[in-house]
Structure formats: structure tokens, C-alpha cells
């Protein structure tokens, strides 16, 4: 993100401080359109798989877009689940862009045929982000399931052939792919795409595999060094601010603060609003766009009036991190990472670069489980490969009764 340093007549608070107090509207937000997914990635932050029968209707989605337009939310990051399996997906994308809400959507590539790629290439307002968690099929498919590497690269091929410029390749950095960062970059360059790497969170099914998949402390240093050397050409969603303490302030590109409930949030497929995409748990549920909270209905009401978001915009307790000289750069790390590993929210991040996370992780912990789980299989750790997806035109009648979508 570009921070424009302009003249000030008198000293004003730093932007980071302004943002921690929250804005009247999010700058952007993540909107998971469906919990339905053809894949079952082991680290899925939203535990997706089966469609939720309470999924918002086309009309309800358009009402949200109308509200986002009024609030001047500049763009939405659409995800899921696999958002393109909604039968009204393209209708909603077109509706959003026609109403001055930009769209970036994340996909595993399942629907990015050459026809779709050609349509996308014709729009200036839609960004496409293809998820890939290994630079080779072997590494990728171990996390995302058999055939998923081929599916993603076919989509990238189609986009390139259609002349779609600057697709994003989105990689969650793990213990097994951290050595492939240069390979990812080369892969992205080959498709005329931009590489985007983000942090693995212990959210959703990620909680089950985080211990085995999160980068070791040596790998975090390696990742940090790579980011400092390559950061200008690589996107990160500002997700590595917990590593800021490894070097000089400002060495990592980006805004590097937790924007949860302050400048970003998540709308889930049933209209529940959470503080961030990595926080699908009752503790971080601010409200629902459809229900009357007592002060009204709709997204704007949740954003501006929910008790949770108001609390997040208050100065936060620094706790055990208060005496650490790096607090100003990492701000205590990621709330969701702490919460889902069972660490106190006012203590160090589980991947604290000063090493304060490790002893905390070694103590007995109670890891909170989310009640929101749309996983298809009982055995969540073994991805079973792509599932053929019929398009649904009406929601299933019973809760989670539809397999797979």
C-alpha cells in the first residue's frame, strides 16, 4: 500500500494510529460468497466444503453491494469456498463493478475456462487470484488435493492466452514450500502474473495442520530476508507484520498492521460479519447483515455499531509484549493466530520472532474450535481430490445436506 506523505500544517497522528481507531467504512473487505468447494485443502481458513443452505440469495448479495457502494468501500476480495461455483457468480461480479465496487476474486481455477478467461480479459475492474501452495504438483497437491496443481496452472494458461494481464498467484507459505519462493516467482513471471504470498494461519482446518505446516523459526528468517530482497515486486496482503521485528522498521513493504474490524472485515456466505477472514469464530462475530441488532439492519450498521468492532477500535491491552522493544513494529502479531493456537490475545504471537511464542506454545493450551465447519469429510487432513460440481440454482433444503455443493 502506498502511504502518501503529504504536508501537514500541524502534527497529525500517524496513519497506523488513525487506522487502529477504525474508519467509518472499511477500505476493502473479504466476502466469502459460498462455503461450497470442489477442493478440501487441509489448511482451509473457512473449513469449506458443503454449501450452507442459508447462503445469501442473489438479491441479498446485491443489497450488500448497494450498501458497499454507498459506503464507498473501494473493492471486495471475493472468496469462499470456491466462489465461481455459485450460479450467480458472474452476475454478482458484474453488478459490483457496475456499482463502483471493484472485485478481486480468489479461485482454485476450476471455472477459468478459455471462454471465461476471454470475458475476464475484457474487464478493467476485475482482478483474478489463483491459489497455489506449491511450485510443483507434488508440494501443492499434498495440501490442496490431487489434480489441483494442474487445475490452477490450466487456469493461468487460459488467462495468459486470453491476454488477461497481471493475474495474481496466491501462495500460503508453509514449511514445505518456503524453499520454493524463487520458483513461485519464476512461475508467476512465466504467466505474466504477480506473485502474492501470505501467512499460514491456524484458522478453520488450518488449526489441524498448523503445527506441522507453519514455517520453522529458521524458515521465518529466510522468508523475511526473501521479502526484504523481493518485496517490491511481490504482494503480501500485509500479512507478515509479525516478522517486522527481524529488521529495521519499514524494511517490510506495506502498512503492516492488523486491520481487523478497523479497516477490513469478513462477510461470510450467510451474512455473518467477522472481524477478519481468519477469525471465523463466535468470539469475533460482530453481527449479521440480515438481522436487526437493535440499532438497525444491514452491513453498515454492523460495521459502525457492533460492540465487538467498537471494542477493537479502542486501545488494546499490550500485556506481556509491553516491555518488548519490538512491540511498535509487530504490534503483538496476529489476533487470530494467537486465538486459534490457544494463546492469550494480549501476549506474543505464536511465531514471535523474539522466540516468545515457543515457550507459550509448549505450555498446556486450550485451542478453541469454531462451530462453523462445512468440511465434507470426517477425516479433514486427507484431501481427496477435486469433486465434480453441478451448479445449484436453488439452495439445498436442509442444513449441510447437499454433497458437495
Amino acid at each position, binding site marked *: *500500500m*502506498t*502511504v*502518501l*506523505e*503529504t*504536508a*501537514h*500544517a500541524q502534527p*497529525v*497522528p500517524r*496513519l497506523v494510529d*488513525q487506522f487502529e481507531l477504525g*474508519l*467509518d*467504512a472499511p*477500505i*476493502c*473487505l*473479504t466476502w466469502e460468497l459460498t462455503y461450497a468447494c470442489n477442493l478440501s485443502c487441509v*489448511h*482451509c*481458513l473457512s473449513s469449506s466444503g458443503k454449501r450452507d443452505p442459508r447462503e445469501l440469495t442473489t438479491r441479498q448479495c446485491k443489497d450488500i453491494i448497494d450498501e458497499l457502494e454507498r459506503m*464507498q468501500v*473501494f*473493492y471486495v*476480495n471475493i*472468496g469462499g469456498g470456491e466462489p465461481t461455483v455459485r450460479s450467480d457468480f458472474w452476475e454478482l461480479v458484474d453488478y459490483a463493478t457496475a456499482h*463502483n465496487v*471493484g472485485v*478481486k476474486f*480468489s479461485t482454485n481455477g476450476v471455472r477459468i475456462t478459455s471462454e471465461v478467461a476471454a470475458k475476464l480479459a475484457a474487464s*478493467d*475492474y476485475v*482482478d483474478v487470484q489463483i*491459489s497455489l501452495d506449491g511450485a510443483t504438483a507434488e508440494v501443492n497437491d499434498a495440501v490442496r488435493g490431487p489434480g489441483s496443481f494442474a487445475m490452477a496452472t490450466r487456469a493461468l494458461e487460459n488467462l495468459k492466452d486470453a491476454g488477461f*494481464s*497481471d493475474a*495474481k498467484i*496466491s501462495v*500460503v507459505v508453509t514449511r514445505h514450500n518456503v524453499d520454493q519462493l524463487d520458483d513461485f516467482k519464476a512461475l508467476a513471471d512465466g504467466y505474466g502474473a*504477480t506473485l*502474492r504470498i*501470505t*501467512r499460514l494461519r491456524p484458522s478453520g482446518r488450518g488449526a489441524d495442520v498448523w503445527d506441522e505446516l507453519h514455517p520453522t523459526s529458521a524458515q521465518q528468517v529466510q522468508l523475511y530476508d526473501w521479502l526484504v530482497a523481493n518485496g517490491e*515486486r511481490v*504482494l*503480501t*496482503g*500485509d*500479512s507478515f507484520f509479525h516478522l517486522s521485528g527481524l529488521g529495521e522498521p519499514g524494511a517490510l513493504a506495506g*502498512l503492516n498492521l492488523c*486491520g481487523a474490524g478497523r*479497516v*477490513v472485515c469478513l462477510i461470510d456466505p450467510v451474512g455473518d460479519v467477522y472481524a*477478519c*477472514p*481468519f477469525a471465523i469464530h463466535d468470539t469475533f462475530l460482530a453481527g449479521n447483515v440480515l438481522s436487526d441488532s437493535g440499532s438497525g439492519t444491514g452491513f453498515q450498521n454492523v460495521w459502525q455499531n457492533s460492540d465487538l468492532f467498537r471494542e477493537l477500535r479502542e486501545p488494546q491491552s499490550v500485556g506481556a509484549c509491553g516491555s518488548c522493544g519490538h512491540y511498535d513494529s509487530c504490534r503483538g502479531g496476529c489476533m487470530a493466530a494467537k486465538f486459534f493456537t490457544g494463546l492469550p490475545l494480549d501476549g506474543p504471537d505464536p511465531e514471535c520472532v523474539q522466540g516468545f511464542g515457543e515457550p507459550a506454545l509448549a505450555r498446556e493450551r486450550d485451542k478453541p474450535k469454531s462451530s462453523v465447519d462445512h468440511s465434507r469429510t470426517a477425516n479433514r487432513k486427507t484431501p481427496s481430490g477435486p469433486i465434480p460440481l453441478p451448479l445449484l440454482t436453488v439452495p439445498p433444503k436442509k442444513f449441510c445436506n447437499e454433497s458437495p455443493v
Partner: protein
Amino acid sequence: MFDPDLRWRLHPQVAVRSESFGALLYHFGTRKLSFLKNRTIVAVVNSLPDHPDARSACRAAGIDDASQAPYLHALGVLAQSTMLVSGQGPAADYPAEDLGDDE
């Protein structure tokens, strides 16, 4: 290059959102976000098309010639990222920006 003696305007794909600290600017084409950190610079940016050149826009916002340097610098930064375009209105490609972390 930013020439303060030319007429400037916001790029047609740029949206301005007022904030308590100033304003947010978002460019739908380049997907870049910028921040205007006080209201004077917001007033200058919004009034650019009404003035024959950037210096006059600053003067009209109450910034005398001796105090204009930081404002002109800010406008230059905006011009560099094509948030602002001059009469001729070029549009170069810049890397997309990224906020809002997801998988």
C-alpha cells in the same frame, strides 16, 4: 513528470473518500491506494480542474507561494502514480496493490 504550471485533474478511474484525517484515494485501474493526510491537500486536489495550473489551485486553498513546496511535492507523488493526470492524460501501468489478507 509533474509540472505545477499545468492544469491537473484526478484520473477518471480514481475515487475520493473523505475521512476525518483527510481522504482516501483509490485508483480502480492500478488498484493503488493513497492517503491525503490533511484537509487542505484534499481541497487542493478536488479543486485542480477549476484552475489553470496547480500553483493557482494551492493559492486558492490559502497556501501562499512560499509554503507550497510540500503540497506540490504531494501532487507530484500523486501524478507519478497516475492518480492525477494533466490535460493530455496519460495512463501508465503500475503494479496492483493489495490489502485485505485472504487465502
